[in-house]
């Protein structure tokens, strides 16, 4: 195997792996957005900021309290998810009777506040978070070199995505959730506490973003702006996939990451805009999104 389509396989597979990693984050984040949108009917603009918080809280726990990566993986989503629950109770819950756009505007404001605060205290230069010892190093697969941590990110993200899908589509609790998405008042009439379910769902969505942040911390430098640009790409991913389906969000996320990686190999200048071009094409051909129901 010398060359594929005139590209050395090292470069091709290297970019594919990068794409798969980006895709892991797209999938985790768009999954969180889809779960929140399903029940709350708002687009959580603060999602990028909460992803950034995840990375930062992991860094703080390690630096100030010596909490290692594995505990951070568990504790950070709980902590950041808890802040999400507070936000939902104090602010977001006041907007459910209004146009959905107000939810977008509110969470945009929250994102500005969160990012601004972190910028004030930590600057924009970025803080290092080292890869845990168990996951450092890598394996030579013959056709490419696979850093262990990157492989771990892809596997962990897949596992979390599929776990979430299973919980929502195949469990009792998930059935309540789906029912409440369809008709909250009817579900409430059956004695289920829908407002609490909404609160917990928002907390869960935020926790997913924070988990993505912890996974990202060792790969990207931890800095206050890390979520801001990413979230806009994730919005495009969500528009392409449509938010109607959990599995759709996961597939679109990974798929677009891979496509972006391929574009980087064949036409690097366009890689930053590839997702947006695909969004334009999808809007032309199938406006409701690949997995979307007609709204």
């Amino acid at each position, binding site marked *: 195997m010398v060359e594929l389509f005139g590209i050395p396989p090292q470069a091709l597979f290297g970019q594919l792996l990068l794409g798969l990693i980006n895709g892991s984050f797209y999938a985790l984040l768009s999954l969180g957005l889809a779960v929140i*949108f399903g029940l709350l009917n*708002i*687009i959580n603009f603060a999602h990028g900021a909460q992803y950034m918080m995840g990375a930062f809280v992991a860094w703080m726990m390690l630096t100030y309290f010596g909490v290692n990566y594995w505990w951070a993986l568990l504790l950070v989503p709980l902590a950041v998810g808890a802040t999400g629950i507070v936000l939902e109770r104090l*602010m977001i819950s*006041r*907007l459910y009777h*209004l146009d*959905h*756009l*107000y939810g*977008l*505007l*509110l969470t*945009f*404001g*929250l*994102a*500005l*506040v*969160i*990012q*601004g*605060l972190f*910028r*004030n205290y930590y600057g924009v230069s970025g803080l290092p978070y080292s890869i845990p010892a168990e996951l450092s190093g890598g394996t030579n697969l013959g056709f490419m070199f696979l850093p262990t941590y990157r492989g771990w990110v892809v596997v962990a993200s897949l596992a979390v995505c599929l776990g979430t899908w299973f919980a929502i589509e195949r469990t009792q609790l998930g059935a309540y959730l789906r029912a409440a998405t369809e008709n909250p008042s009817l579900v409430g009439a059956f004695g289920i506490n829908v407002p609490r379910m909404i609160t917990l769902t928002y907390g869960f969505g935020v926790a997913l973003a924070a988990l993505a942040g912890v996974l990202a911390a060792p790969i990207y430098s931890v800095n206050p702006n890390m979520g*801001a*640009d990413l979230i*806009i*790409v994730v*919005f*495009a991913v*969500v*528009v392409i996939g449509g938010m109607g389906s959990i599995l759709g969000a996961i597939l679109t996320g990974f798929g677009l990451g891979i496509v972006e990686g391929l574009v980087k190999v064949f036409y690097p*200048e366009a890689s*930053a*805009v590839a*997702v*947006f*071009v695909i*969004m*334009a094409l999808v*809007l*032309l051909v199938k*406006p409701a999104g690949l997995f979307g129901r007609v*709204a």
Partner: protein
Amino acid sequence: MAVDAPATLPNSAAKVGAPRHHTLVFFALLLIMLVAPFVLYPVFLMKVMCFALFASALNLLLGFGGLLSFGHAAYFGIAAYVSAYTAKVWGLPPELAILLGTAAAAVLGLLIGALAIRRQGIYFAMVTLAFAQMVYFFSLQAPFTGGEDGIQAVPRGRLFGFIDLANDLTFYFVVLAIVTGGMLAIYRIIHSPFGQVLKAIRDNEPRSTSLGYKVDRYKLAVFVMSATLAGLAGAIKALVFQLASLTDVHWTMSGEVVLMTLLGGMGTIFGPLVGAAVIIGMQNYFASFGAWVTVLQGMIFVISVLLFREGIVGVISRWIKKPL
């Protein structure tokens, strides 16, 4: 076709021509702006006027068309780049540079608008934001935008060959004339039959469709108008500051102009002007606080959405029981 006034405000829109208090407010504002440059720094005032026009353009789309564009920086920024480039590299006179910048924004608005109106509500906001980000990445990489540096030291030139715009005070009155023209155009659009249909679509889209209106055409038309006026604001801004940079196309700019509109009062005529003056004033006088300005803006966003959805002018309008 009968022109329906909003239920709470009988007879206000049914009269022919502008209500008298609107004319009064317009003249009062114009009077203030004629005196203002002798009291305040003209460049600051020109910035306020550019953003007032920018916010009013967004308000035309958001407040009267019911479409939230979260990517208006794209039109503002592309117009700034084109007018800066044509003025500096091609050496065009300012009137042509502004015209070309505005035209570029119109074309971009047509392209993005035609795609964006295929989705509604919250998706529309996300689509416009995503396309604006695409324009941002394009501006970052395209050879003519100067990348991180932007286009600097843009000559202001001579308007029509004999009005020297290098003088801040001269340029101030030119900007005042253009922005006043833009505002009057928006006022005319809102109060035309076209504007009435627009409001009908905003309030009840399926019903407007069933009445036989080609809803998509109206949406696209107002989108292009809004993008064009946002472009006009951006083109002037590039010449005032002699600079077009990535800040102009960044999503934070889109957010800022939404904030101005929200704070001043969505769907009011004078709200965006007030919102722009407050936000630009805040940025100007609090500049030494650095990133705290972002935090403050975010907090204003949160407070406006939670407690103050009518905006400043909306509240005043409710007090005096007249639409402003």
